[in-house]
Structure formats: C-alpha cells, structure tokens
C-alpha cells in the first residue's frame, strides 16, 4: 500500500522545471521573457519587468494592492501566474498616464487627498478604473462596492470615494 516514491515531508522534491517563454504586452509594449511557471504575475511585473508600482499587500487576494488590468479586466496579480498571462495585454498604474498627463483618476486622488501612505493607491486607482469603465456615473454606494476588493488602512475610504467622484466629474479634462 505504501507508495515508496513519495517524499514523506509533504513537500515535493525540488526538480528542475524548465522555464517557459511568455510574451506580454505591458503598458502598450510587447516583451518576451523566460519565466519559471510558478512565478506570480505580481513578481513578474515587479522583479522581472521592473514595474514596482504594483504592490503586494496581503497575498491572499483580499487587499487588492496588486490590482492590474489583464485584457482590460482588473485582477489581483498575486493570484495569477505570469504564464497564465501569456499573450495578454496588461496595464499597470505606470501605464495610466498618457503623454505625461495624469489619468483623471490619478488627478482625482491628488485633488481629493485620496491617499496617505500610497501603498494601496496604485491598486485602488486601477480598480476604480475598472469601475468607471463599467459604470461611468456610479453612486457613492456603487463606488464603495466597486472598491470592495481593495483595502486601505489609512484613509477611511471617504476621500477615495471623493477622488473617484472627481474623476467622474472631470473626465474630459
């Protein structure tokens, strides 16, 4: 009955795992990398691509600090492997400003003091981006619900709600 091939510690023996080639459009530019399959998307963005604006807060897909857009959908990059994003278009907080001009949401967070320590902010802005794409004129209640996947320990959220409202009102600027 005993299966002698198994390690008894509960961990799999480390084996040489071949790296995989992935091609990702990151903030508008394609790049090719060889990655270990277990490399989390968030570590790929931060450590391989050097885009450290995306943060790691909870590692259990609760806090949303690692939120990025994958093919236009906000996802938590700590709960996805880089290989799963092969072929995808990814937008991080670094990709939101255009031609040096802040995205209205970024501007809104600045205008309305939507951040304090700033650690949750990139994920919060990306999640808000998703919200406004689907619901361009959300109520305060809807903004709060739309940001349910993003924790902020500093602001008490009220100024974040105002920041999103600012962006709604100043979309064209």
């Amino acid at each position, binding site marked *: 009955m005993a299966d002698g091939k198994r390690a008894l510690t509960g*961990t799999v023996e480390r084996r040489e795992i071949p790296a995989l080639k992935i091609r990702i459009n990151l903030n508008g530019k394609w790049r090719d990398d060889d990655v270990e399959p277990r490399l989390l998307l968030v570590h790929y963005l931060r450590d391989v691509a050097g885009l450290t604006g995306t943060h790691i807060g909870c590692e259990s897909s609760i806090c949303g600090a690692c939120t990025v857009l994958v093919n236009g959908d*906000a*996802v938590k990059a700590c*709960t*996805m492997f880089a290989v799963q994003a092969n072929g995808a278009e990814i937008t991080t907080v670094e990709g939101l400003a255009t031609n040096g001009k802040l995205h209205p949401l970024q501007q809104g967070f600045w205008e309305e003091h939507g951040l304090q320590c700033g650690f949750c902010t990139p994920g919060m802005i990306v999640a808000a981006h998703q919200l406004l794409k689907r619901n361009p004129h959300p109520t305060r209640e809807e903004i709060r619900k739309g940001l349910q996947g993003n924790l902020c320990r500093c602001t008490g959220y009220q100024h974040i709600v105002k920041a999103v409202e600012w962006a709604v009102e100043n979309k064209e600027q």
Partner: protein
Amino acid sequence: MITEPFEYHSPTTLEEAWQAMAETGADGKIVAGGHSLIPIMKLRLASPKYLIDIGRIEELRNIREEDGRIEIGALATHYQIEASDLLKRLCPLLPETASEIGDVQVRNKGTIGGSLAHADPAADWPAAILALEAEIEARSARGSRSIKAADYFLDLMTTALQPDEILTSIRVRAMPPHTGQAYLKLHHPASGYAMVGVAACVTLTESGAVAKAAVGLTGAGAKAVRAVAVEEVLSGKSPTNHKLDEAAAVAAQGLELNSDLYASAEYRGHLARVYTRRALAKAVERARGASSLQPVAVQG
C-alpha cells in the same frame, strides 16, 4: 507566499487536457480562474507537480440558450455571469448570486466551474446550483455525463467528479412563468464568504399557491445542501407569512453545522432559518410581480 515548483501545461482543447491529466495522474491538478487553487498553493497546502491550466479552452467560456435550456461554460467568470443580459432575463438567480461573490477582481477572474470543482463549503454557487436543480456536465476521454446538482456535492470540498473528468458546463432551465428567485447571504466581514447563503426559487400557481419551491443552502455545513424539508412544507401551500415562517423553521433540520471563530453551529442554524425566510419571501414577492412573459429583473 510562494508555491512549490510545478510544471505548467496549457491545453487549448479538452482532448489535450485529458491527455495531460492522464499523463500526470494524481500529480496533476486542473486550474481555471485559479482563485480557489492558487491561494492554497501559495500556502503550500496544495503542491501539485503539474498544473493543467484549462483557461485557454475557449469553448468552455460561453453562455448560451437553446429552447429554454441555458448552458454556462465552466470557464464563464463570475463577472461574465453577473453581467449577462441573457441570464438576467432567463435565470436572474445566477447574476444575483454572482454579484455576491468576493469582489470585482475576484469575479473578473474566478470561474463558476472552478468554484464548483473546488466545492468550498462557504462558496456561493453551490446554493444557486442546488436551488436551480442544475445539471453539471462532466467530460472525460471516456465520454460525458451529466450530474444532478443534488448528487454533485459529496462532502467537504469533495464532489462527484472523477479524477479524469473535467467539469465543462452547467445547465439550467430558464425560469418558468410565475417564478421568483433570490440569493441572500451573511458575508464574513473579512473573506466575504457566506456564513450562510440561501438561494430560493419559487414558482407559484395561477392562484398564487406554491407550485414548486427549491432552496439551496451554503455555508452552514461541510457542503451545500438542498433544504428539502423547507420545500416540502411549502409545496402546494399558499405562501403566507406564517407558512414561510413554518418552512424556514426547518431549514437547518438534520444538518451537521459548522462552527468557527465568527459563528457557532447554533448561530449558523439560526442564520439558516432567518436567511431562508428572507430569501423565500423575496422570491415569492418576485414571483408575484412576475408575469409569464416578463420574468422579474434582478434588483441591484
């Protein structure tokens, strides 16, 4: 939190997936959206040597309707279901349930198939699937079979799926006339999981009596269950307040209830009754408001 190393396979057809499963056997694990599996892998509580990512099997992503039968591909994300106009029209319980899952990011990535395959005792889908008497399509190289929702959930995170099967779709019937559906839950304040979640489908007769009631209960015990006793109390009866009370009173009957930091077994039993009562009332109210031609829309 970092997973153990694994080899990654990314089949684009079911055939390729079955082959990968056959080759890797018990060392392989299927991943779809990853929102159930990847967190456990990061804790190293699951360490498959091979990860078979079925996320690229496009045929599993569709939601379609034919002759009042709706098929939802296993890879349909919670958000896809939440936003589906087709489902809002024909089976609003599904979008309503979807909207209660996790948060936007989780709904964007998590899939109905992945959630059902994982069968977390506090997941939302099982309640809806049971109340809708859905059929779960499982396919393997051996062929396909349809599993009734009532036969699907076996125990804690244990389903009727065989090791070589892939959950490929979920089939439900369009909501019949004079039907109302509702899903209500008490969210865990941190995880958002259902402390107790109740899905109710109630079809009324022309005279307003209960033609059929189906109630699915999640979060209460080790697995989601159909609250048969509740349904029996209502069947054929007029859904008066008193009758709904009477029906809800037996919601937790015979259940082995979970208990954790947030809610004791006793309290869960109570929640099961309260939320059953509320879900039934909402479903009845919607059934009354629904005409045969125009199923009720989900309220925000």
